């Protein structure tokens, strides 16, 4: 029963120890899978047809429905950042779904989710300054300058709560499945865990991915418009 993130190798780069943990390795695996899918898609759609058919139809359906979702929740003028969130969506969803095969989800490590949430935070600041400029700065002092610390803490709490939400959900699924595998005898470890995996990895993973993306989009929309 091991709940820790394993450390696989320790690299020594110019006197600095770099730890290659299980999370980093699994992230590489998922990145490899996503990149291979992207390259296959690119090669197959080399000659793009006006009337979609077969494979192109499926890809168009996925991309179009995500674009509609993003522009519905962001508004038309901000929807040019939707490709970044499509990447986040694909990464978080595939990391949740690949944990069915016993790969520890990278999102069950706070480092990964905080990186994603911090990217959202930076994007939020950037979009605020780009679209509202001085007004965005003024919103920190909004009712009265005395509220500045409160507003600052409110802004800084956003990436924390966003990252902890995803991390907590993924980690709770990992813990429950680890407990099940660790505490039960061998003959009930076939078949029954499939239901647990279906709930904790597939359903919770999909819902949490949706929530992570839609709350990121909401933050950006609130700031930029």
């Amino acid at each position, binding site marked *: 029963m091991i709940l820790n993130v394993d450390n696989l190798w320790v690299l020594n780069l110019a006197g600095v120890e770099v730890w290659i943990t299980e999370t980093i390795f699994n992230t590489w695996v998922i990145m490899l899978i996503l990149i291979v899918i992207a390259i296959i898609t690119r090669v197959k759609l080399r000659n793009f047809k006006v009337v979609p058919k077969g494979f192109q139809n499926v890809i168009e359906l996925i991309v179009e429905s995500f674009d509609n979702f993003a522009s519905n929740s962001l508004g038309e003028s901000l929807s040019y950042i939707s490709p970044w969130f499509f990447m986040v969506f694909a990464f978080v969803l595939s990391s949740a779904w690949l944990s069915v095969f016993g790969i520890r989800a990278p999102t069950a490590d706070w480092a990964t989710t905080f990186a994603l949430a911090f990217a959202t935070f930076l994007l939020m600041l950037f979009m605020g300054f780009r679209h509202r400029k001085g007004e965005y700065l003024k919103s920190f002092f909004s009712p009265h300058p005395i509220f500045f610390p409160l507003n600052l803490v409110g802004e800084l709490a956003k990436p924390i709560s966003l990252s902890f*939400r995803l*991390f*907590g*959900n993924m980690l709770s699924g990992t813990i429950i499945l680890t407990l099940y595998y660790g505490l039960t005898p061998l003959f009930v470890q076939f078949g029954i865990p499939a239901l647990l995996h279906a709930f904790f990895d597939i359903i919770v993973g999909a819902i949490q991915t949706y*929530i992570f993306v839609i*709350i990121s989009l909401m933050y950006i929309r609130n700031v930029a418009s």
Partner: protein
Amino acid sequence: MQGTIASAIGVIHIAAAIALLNGAFTTFGQAKIAAQAIESIARQPEAAEDIRGAMFVGLAMAETSGIYGLLIAIIMLFANPLVEVLVNLIS
């Protein structure tokens, strides 16, 4: 000496269980959100999509406190800095 450590660990487990009790209140709040959303959908089925989106966001917001309780429990059980202090103090 060992008895002290054992009782400290027992207290830590009880504290983790108490931290997890906020799940009851979180669930209560989420149930309220879901019930209201279903009521609204039944009243206005054409607005179901918007209501569903708002419901999911509200559920996620309400879930945050439950997740914080879970994290506090996990930290107390697996990464408790006080256990080390206690062990050093005793030995």
